[in-house]
């Protein structure tokens, strides 16, 4: 089988298209394999952008059609929180402080289950009642 025929075969759409697909799929899975520790982390700040220490961050996981609480984390001295081993691809984040300030619920959608993600800062505000 000469090189020319091989090239022609590869060029043929019935070969080329599936090959391309396979390549994409493999690449994607490799990428997943390296980024699926289920780490979800980020900062909690107040309106001024200053980090909020000791704030509770609640993760709500989507269950069927509504969201229910899954895990909680508390921000450290740098206002940084971190969930690990989050086996989900869709949920919501909300930060609460002991003095009753809350952040808006942040919708979180990932490209694959337990994708490592860096969430943009959650801003806590005093809820107007």
């Amino acid at each position, binding site marked *: 089988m000469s090189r020319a025929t091989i090239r022609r075969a590869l060029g043929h759409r019935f070969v080329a298209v599936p090959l391309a697909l396979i390549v994409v799929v493999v690449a994607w899975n490799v990428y997943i394999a390296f980024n699926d520790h289920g780490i979800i982390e980020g900062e909690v700040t107040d309106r001024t952008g200053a980090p909020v220490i000791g704030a509770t961050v609640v993760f709500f996981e989507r269950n069927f059609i509504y969201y229910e609480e899954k895990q909680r984390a508390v921000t450290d001295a740098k206002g940084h929180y971190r969930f690990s081993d989050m086996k989900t691809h869709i949920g919501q984040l909300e930060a609460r402080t002991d003095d009753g300030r809350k952040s808006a619920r942040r919708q979180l959608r990932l490209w694959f*289950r337990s994708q490592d993600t860096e969430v943009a800062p959650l801003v806590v505000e005093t809820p107007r009642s």
Partner: protein
Amino acid sequence: MRRAPGSPRHWPRHAIMIAVSFLMLIPFYWVIKTSLTGENIYAWPPRILPVDPHLFNYVDVWYLIPFGRYLLNSTIVTAMAIAGSLLFNVAAGYALTKHFPGRRWIVVLLLSCMLIPFQATIIPAYLITSWLGVLDTWLGVALPLLSTIICIFIFKASFEAVPPSLIDAARVDGLSEWRIVTRILLPLSKSAIATNVILTFIWSWNSFLWPLITIRSPEMQTLPLGLARFLSVMEDTTGALFAFVVLVLIPGLAIFLMAQKEFIRGLTSGATKG
């Protein structure tokens, strides 16, 4: 006006065809658009362009059902159906080119077989399949599609189109009937093959009720069943359903687009001559 080759007045025809194509494409566009929009697809008025388009609905689909597994099942079933139907239809088609007593009857029989609604034959068909002991297997799902009447006639037609002299010559050279088919007739009826492949693909890839009845174990489900199962979980309330619809349709469209030239030529020969 209607058909005058080389007539200068092209644009009205273009106008009509563009309008038609537009109408034909609307459903595609609408479902794709929906599959890309966010949570509330019931917001009035619906937008022509998707609101903050994203692909996460497709992610949801992927995790809502074992998509890969279903895809595999569908693929295997379809592959079996295609292979089997090719073999059987070619054989039958060739046999029908022969002259033998009762040939007409068999043709009539086959034609009337086309008129029996499959949905109405499910129970006996199911019993027969269980009697054959192939329930809940790929073959069990593929079996009813292993032979398709239309394709038989398409092959018959394209075989008849082959000059008899060729066949006789081969026969004189002492080629076996099977060889005559594989070496001489098949190479000359590529389009018929393409037609058979695509039609069988369409039918087996899309069949819904039959696998629904014959398949019981979750890991044997095919994509259309996924659709049913999917509906049952999410109901028709999110873009995810439509994302799934798109995912289900893509393979069929892809195959068709890749093989359409042969396919249409095959249908052509089949339709006119047989």
